[in-house]
């Protein structure tokens, strides 16, 4: 890419110079690019490019102006010539600005068109640059990888990791220079400032080394901190330090009461530091407290998978080498411990892919789309300039007669279009700034690195570059067109008809066809996304999410040490909440639908043959309050849900979802059968009910077996989400819920208070955003193309006024004239639709990851888009056609 850019730059040089030194210049460029001066900082590549472009422009100018210089000193002659050419350049610019002001209407249309095109490109590129292209803000981020367990039998690529495996990897790998675990959850802190639920990150001290982080105050974590019994320490985020401690520099040594235990503050992280943990089960909005994970001996040997592992590749080790080595380590483990490892391997994912992999495709798709919009804008402006160029034929001819050379005229015209483009670009940059601010306000959750989005030097350079290229593209066609026509004839003939004619019209027609074909491709893309979004909204998620309000609660272990304490708390809380006036239903669950990932484990049916290790089916596990299914509106398919008598001492019972029932006992009743589930010991429970499937993560969730347990019978989690169905005002519900909780325990914060509908719309936010953005671009494209076809048709009507006048004088009917004009518009449209359809079908493959429930060649969308496009284009042609039919034959004939 950058070599291509440099090759384009080389075009500035005179051909002879280029021919002689091209290879050398390229070699120089490649060597200079990897100069340490430009590698050390993030801004380095920008500096490199500024220097390279400036150097090329400056020397190209010197070479072209003073090409005959043969000496080596500070030349007087070259100097004056340069000033002379600078003068013409400034003169051209002044002339261009005067011209713009002379035709304010024309200039306004051109500038608006360009501002839209360039602004949209700048905005999308700005987001893409900050989110995807800019390196992550850690030391040598390209060497950081997430290490996941991978289950090749179940096709799960990125599974959380078991501690036992983590320690084996840590001790036996020879591809990582460092490795550590990181996970996040929420915790409650208490103290003078009142209870607060905060985000807490558990991590190995080595993670800070891996990321290259330095403390702002005090120290970060050291190896001893992760040994059990070495005291409890915490590192604060800059935001938390400001919020809770008012940026007090004496905070080191203070203590924070976290889930009821005291932690000593040892340091503060630098401002702006953050690390988004890929999987969070129970996360708060921000990551405030950073605490070392302490593994005791039991944890090292523990089964079950819940860790997330980050590592840094050793210098010189490629991702592929590391992956190969880790894969062979995994297969060794698989042979040694088949009962736990069968079917498991290891998958390395670069940090960058992990963080932004999901938004890459939509963002590049959007950048491609705005590129189309810009091309359409260019075609439109070129068309406008062509039309104006005809009028300027005479002016150009006069200048030629006064001695302006052809190249001088071309340069003047190109300067004019470049000035237009630069002004348009400046307006576009402002538009882009506004658009990016709007975006940050609109969709903060689903886009990674939103807080890093800024308009920086790279983006300004991008805008300047795009503007100049745009000016060259839309300026070149009319400039060469005007300058290559016969200047003398124009002068003699009075300039009215010069440069028109068949060839000229064909060029304008061609531009309009291109505009409509590109618009069609965008409209098809937008149409597909709109249809696909409709499909998403039509999906039945398996429960009734209306008027449901949710809030999370986590019980600290020291205040509620026994499982029975926690059961009693949640039981009485739900009882009290159900009694609040205005509450239709209320219950609780460990992992609420639409609330992020949940818990899962393997299980088997006792009346079936038990599959081999590693091939056991996996079920999502949820612990619920007994009224959960009726309160949330999950339909009961067979048997019963939980009853008051399913207490701690009663025999274990389970409720399963339809998918589980159909998968294990297809065609027969599952009621009365027993299932086993390893959770510490192996739990055996009788299936007493089957309920409908719930799409936990929204419409695109792949449903798998699910087992519900009554939380009174067993529950290892101390957090639950309480939910309330009430038609009342969510704000007052939140207030009464807080009141009820405070009556039980004033030190217990409620967090993640949310409307279930809001959570649902957040799940759809990315799809909605991409749909709206592409829809907007397609609309702009369609408007531009319509203006284009209107311009071409009315221009050709004006031009053919005499011909039409003669026809009408000879008795042609007005309706026939209208039809003829519409017909010529329709011919252009027909070609455009053909090309647009072909283009859409060719590009539809790119949309395959973005649509849901429909084919990317969806015939309904294609048909609808064709109809819309045709209707808009015909409407745009209708005005000039009507004008043609009202031409007064006598007037038209007299004009000649």
């Amino acid at each position, binding site marked *: 890419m950058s070599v291509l850019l440099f090759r384009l730059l080389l075009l500035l040089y005179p051909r002879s*110079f280029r021919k002689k030194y091209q290879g050398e210049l390229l*070699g*120089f*460029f490649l060597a200079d690019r990897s100069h340490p001066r430009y590698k050390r900082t993030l801004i380095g590549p920008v500096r490199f490019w500024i220097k390279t472009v400036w150097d*090329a422009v*400056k020397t190209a100018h*010197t070479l072209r102006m003073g090409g005959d*210089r043969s*000496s080596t000193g500070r030349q007087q002659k070259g100097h004056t010539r340069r000033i002379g050419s600078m003068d013409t350049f400034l003169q051209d610019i002044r002339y261009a600005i005067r011209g713009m002001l002379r035709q304010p209407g024309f200039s306004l249309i051109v500038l608006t068109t360009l501002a839209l095109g360039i602004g949209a490109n700048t905005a999308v590129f700005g987001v893409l640059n900050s989110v995807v292209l800019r390196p992550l803000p850690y030391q040598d981020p390209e060497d950081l990888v997430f290490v996941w367990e991978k289950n090749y039998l179940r096709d799960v690529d990125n599974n959380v990791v078991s501690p036992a495996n983590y320690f084996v990897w840590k001790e036996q790998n020879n591809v990582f220079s460092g490795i550590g675990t990181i996970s996040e959850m929420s915790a409650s802190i208490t103290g003078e400032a009142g209870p607060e639920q905060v985000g807490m990150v558990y991590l190995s001290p080595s993670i800070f080394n891996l990321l290259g982080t330095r403390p702002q105050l005090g120290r970060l974590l050291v190896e001893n901190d992760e040994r059990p019994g070495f005291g409890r320490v915490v590192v604060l985020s800059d935001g938390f330090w400001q919020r809770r401690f008012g940026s007090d520099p004496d905070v080191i040594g203070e203590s924070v009461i976290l889930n009821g235990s005291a932690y000593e503050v040892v340091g503060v992280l630098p401002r702006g530091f953050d690390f988004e943990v890929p999987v969070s089960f129970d996360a708060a909005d921000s990551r405030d407290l950073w605490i070392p994970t302490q593994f005791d001996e039991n944890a090292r040997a523990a089964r079950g998978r819940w860790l997330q592992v980050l590592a840094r590749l050793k210098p010189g080790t490629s991702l592929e080498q590391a992956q190969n080595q880790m894969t062979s380590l995994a297969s060794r483990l698989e042979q040694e411990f088949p009962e736990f490892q069968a079917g498991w391997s290891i998958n390395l994912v670069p940090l960058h892919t992990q963080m932004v992999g999901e938004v890459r495709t939509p963002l590049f798709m959007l950048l491609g789309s705005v590129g189309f919009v810009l091309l359409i804008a260019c075609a439109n402006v070129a068309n406008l300039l062509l039309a104006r160029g005809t009028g300027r034929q005479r002016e150009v001819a006069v200048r030629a007669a006064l001695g302006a050379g052809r190249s001088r005229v071309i340069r003047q015209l190109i300067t004019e279009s470049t000035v237009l483009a630069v002004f348009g670009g400046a307006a576009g940059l402002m538009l882009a700034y506004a658009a990016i601010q709007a975006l940050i306000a609109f969709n903060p959750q689903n886009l990674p690195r939103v807080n890093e989005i800024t308009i920086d030097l790279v983006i300004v350079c991008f805008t300047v570059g795009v503007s100049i290229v745009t000016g060259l593209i839309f300026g070149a066609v009319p400039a060469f067109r005007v300058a290559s026509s016969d200047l003398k004839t124009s002068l003699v003939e009075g300039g009215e008809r010069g440069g028109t004619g068949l060839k000229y019209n064909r060029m304008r027609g061609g531009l309009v066809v291109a505009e409509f074909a590109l618009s069609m491709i965008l409209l098809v893309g937008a149409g597909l996304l709109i249809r696909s979004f409709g499909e998403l909204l039509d999906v039945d998620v398996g429960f009734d999410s209306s008027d449901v309000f949710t809030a999370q609660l986590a019980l600290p272990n020291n205040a509620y040490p026994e499982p029975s304490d926690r059961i009693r708390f949640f039981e009485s809380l739900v009882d009290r909440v159900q009694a609040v006036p205005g509450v239709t239903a209320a219950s609780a669950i460990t992992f609420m639908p639409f609330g992020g990932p949940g818990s899962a484990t393997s299980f088997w049916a006792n009346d079936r043959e038990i599959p081999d290790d590693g091939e056991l089916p996996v079920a999502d596990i949820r612990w619920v309050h007994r009224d959960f299914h009726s309160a949330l509106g999950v339909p009961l398919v067979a048997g019963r849900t939980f009853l008051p008598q399913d207490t701690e001492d009663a025999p274990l019972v389970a409720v399963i979802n339809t998918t589980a029932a159909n998968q294990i006992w297809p065609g027969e009743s599952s009621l009365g059968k027993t299932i086993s589930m390893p959770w510490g010991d192996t739990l055996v429970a009788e299936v007493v009910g089957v309920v409908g499937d719930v799409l936990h993560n929204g419409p695109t969730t792949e449903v798998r077996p699910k087992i519900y347990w009554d939380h009174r019978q067993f529950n290892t989690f101390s957090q639950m989400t309480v939910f309330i169905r009430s038609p009342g005002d969510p704000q007052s519900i939140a207030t009464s819920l807080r009141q009820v909780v405070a009556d039980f325990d004033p030190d217990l914060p409620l967090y993640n208070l949310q409307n279930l509908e809001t959570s649902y719309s957040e799940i759809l936010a990315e799809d909605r955003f991409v749909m709206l953005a592409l829809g907007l671009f397609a609309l702009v494209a369609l408007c531009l193309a319509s203006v284009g076809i209107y311009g071409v048709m009315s221009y050709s009507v004006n031009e053919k006024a005499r011909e039409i006048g003669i026809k009408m004088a000879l008795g042609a009917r007005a309706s026939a004239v209208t039809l003829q004009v519409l017909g010529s518009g329709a011919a252009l449209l027909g070609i455009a639709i053909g090309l647009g359809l072909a283009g859409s079908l060719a590009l539809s493959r790119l949309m395959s990851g973005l649509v849901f429930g429909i084919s990317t060649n969806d015939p309904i969308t294609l048909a609808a888009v064709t109809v819309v496009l045709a209707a808009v284009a015909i409407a745009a042609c209708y005005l000039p056609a009507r004008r043609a039919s009202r031409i007064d034959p006598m007037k038209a004939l007299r004009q000649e």
Partner: protein
Amino acid sequence: MRNSDGSLAGNLSPVVFQILLSLADSDLHGYGIKLEVEKRTDGAMNLGSGTLYEAIQRLEACGYIKECDTPPDAPSGARKRRYYRLRVAGREVLESELAQMDKIVKYARRKKLMPQAR
């Protein structure tokens, strides 16, 4: 002040002067010249590719430098680079420029504008 060849002394442009100086003791390729100049000027002169080859073109045209064979001790890279060598005329121009500078420096010392050389 006129030199023996009739040209005005002290009128080499800084870029040209630095390029000639780099080639005084060894043949170098373009990027090698850039690195040498950068090192000698403590990074103050950071030549761009265009500036460098524009000057090289002029120096070649004047007969001050010429292209030469790749030195045997050059690293055998994938890309063959052009090496440049100082010609006699180039060395004379450089020497007269340096002599001129030397005169100016001595004059400046007499005027106590500069510390004495140790």
